[in-house]
């Protein structure tokens, strides 16, 4: 079996998320080096705060200010930090119950090694030099010698100048994508300006591009079949909207094209004919540009139009 194709695939997206009033107060507070929690109906203080009680579902709005010092409730030593994590050097993941809070916050603890970390140890917030209103405004925690303050946390109105109302949560995941056996064969053939499909052993239909299985019969398609190069326009539309990064004059025609010998139409752009003269049944052939890895577009062959009956099953 020839080697399957592989290529790096990066999926990256910046999610823009809006904040509710409690989250907005908490994250704005971090920017101002103030840690806020929220009081539950039964008087517990949740840090980080949420808008609805996870047990009773009561709406929570009573903000209080807690200390930036706290106690580790559990930890885990991370010998090899991964991309995006708070510290680039080995560190401990910690759940920290801040003084005045009844729940714990997840973050990183900067410590020289696992021997320097214990459950119950005292820590304090190390603030990031530049703060924007995000959980990363806490750069990390660091060991701290002081005792816990036992004063009741004071009420806070949650009001700050220029409140943060949204965050951009950037996400990036890296993959090595492989299209599998069937599409590898299809892509490799395109490099030789040939189009190959696969035939279903059961219903004999030829699928282009092949995906490895017949959607009607649910069995693997394996017999490789060369189709085209010419084909028939089975249906089409006229595009009047410019796509980003696409240098094609408007309007243009996008069509379903049943290559000769194929039982499934693939899509392609039609050129070499005025857009308002493209029609169902038009016979077309692929046009390759220098170095192109797939047909740039399809143009009329000049043959007579195909009879509707010859392609009606493929519309």
């Amino acid at each position, binding site marked *: *079996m020839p080697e*399957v194709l*592989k290529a790096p*695939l990066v*999926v990256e997206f910046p999610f823009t*998320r809006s*904040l509710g009033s409690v989250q907005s107060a908490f*994250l704005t507070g971090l920017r101002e080096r103030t840690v806020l929690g929220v009081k539950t109906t039964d008087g517990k203080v*949740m*840090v*980080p705060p*949420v808008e609805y009680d*996870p047990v009773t579902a009561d709406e929570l709005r009573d903000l209080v200010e807690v200390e930036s010092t706290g106690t580790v*409730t*559990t*930890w*885990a*030593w*991370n*010998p090899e930090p*991964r*991309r*995006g*994590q708070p510290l680039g050097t080995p560190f401990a*993941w910690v*759940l920290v*119950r801040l003084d005045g809070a009844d*729940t*714990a*916050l*997840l*973050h*990183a603890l900067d410590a020289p090694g696992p021997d320097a970390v214990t*459950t119950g140890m005292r820590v304090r917030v190390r603030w990031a030099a530049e703060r924007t209103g*995000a*959980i*990363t405004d806490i750069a990390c925690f660091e060991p701290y010698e002081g005792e816990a303050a036992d004063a009741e946390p004071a009420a806070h109105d949650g009001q700050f100048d220029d409140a943060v109302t949204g*965050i951009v*949560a950037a*996400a990036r*995941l*890296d*993959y*090595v*994508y*492989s*299209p*599998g*056996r*069937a*599409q590898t064969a299809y892509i490799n053939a395109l490099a030789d300006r040939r189009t190959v499909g696969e035939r279903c052993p059961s219903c004999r239909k030829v699928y282009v591009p092949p*995906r*490895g*299985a*017949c*959607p*009607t019969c*649910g*069995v*693997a398609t394996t017999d490789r079949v060369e189709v085209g190069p010419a084909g028939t326009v089975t249906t089409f539309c006229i595009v009047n909207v410019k796509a980003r990064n696409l240098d094609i004059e408007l309007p243009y025609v996008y069509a379903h094209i049943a290559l000769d010998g194929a039982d499934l139409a693939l899509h392609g752009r039609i050129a070499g004919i005025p857009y308002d003269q493209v029609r169902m049944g038009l016979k077309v052939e692929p046009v390759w540009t220098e170095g192109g890895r797939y047909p740039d577009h399809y143009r009329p062959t000049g043959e007579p139009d195909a009879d509707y009956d010859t392609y009606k099953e493929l519309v």
Partner: protein
Amino acid sequence: MREVAIVAFAQSDHLRTTDELSEVDMVMPVLHQVLAQTGLRTSDIGFTCSGSSDYLAGRAFSFTMTLDGVGAWPPISESHVEMDGAWAMYEAWVKLLTGEVDTALVYSYGKSSPGSVRDVLTRQLDPYYVAPLWPDSVALAALQAQALIDAGETDETALAGIAARSRESASANCHAQVKGSVPQGDYEVQPLRKGDCPPVSDGAVAVILAAGDKARELCERPAWIRGMDHRIEAHSLGVRDLTDSPSSRLAAERAGAFERPVDTAELHAPFTSQEVVLRKALKLGDDVAVNPSGGALAANPVMAAGLLRIGEAAARIHRGESDRALAHATSGPCLQQNLVAVLEGDAR
């Protein structure tokens, strides 16, 4: 309540990479196997439901590709959950209970090899307070493990014992990925060593459900679903008691697990420490065979490993090796969501 049973179960071999296979290539043989076990054809199936995740594939609507393997033309009654297949099975079970259909095909798959599972799973975390810190799945499990050690409920030696027992059990499972004697290795995230963590796996699983007499007709000893329930806990880790799993216990109670003892438990515990939590929450004694298949420590195709547990439990009933089994599936960090099914064979 209508009687519903698992009547067939099939799984792929679970492998570290399956480059040459597209998702449909991986799933199709498993679908063919469950259909062959029952003699059913796609057109005989009343409802089809699948579970998978686009984040593993790195591509939107990735499940539509594997539908080709089902033979979805002419149109079929079909649904998908962006979750472990155990939850797809729950949906199918409910559909059967309504009386609308008599059979259902449930499948799920995970092809983890193209990406990094540890990073991919961070995307299911709270996007405001947690995900920006990129705590990976091993790190979060390690926090739970340390909490258990601090509470005196386990230690590293006991965890290593769970790892060894699981991989030893997996020796009898021809589909398992990691089996036999495997060194515990270095710390991935302390206190969890490599041996405490699941392998990264590609794999697929399928089951067929049938109701009443249809089940008896299709299977010599159907695995009757006596109850099934799923529960979720607060999403903030710092709110939860990580040494316990009240959601598992409640799901088990609602599924009827505590009405009579079980002889087998297939637990979806990707990390050794999670087995400690689940044994306690599900009140499993030492006389219960826990993960005779090797469990998720032996093969962990994400999104399929939970349905695998249910399938393995059902297969033991089919083979007459169990009379009453508990099957558990989990999702999310530190056993956040939990599903429990109770399966029984007819009295012998």
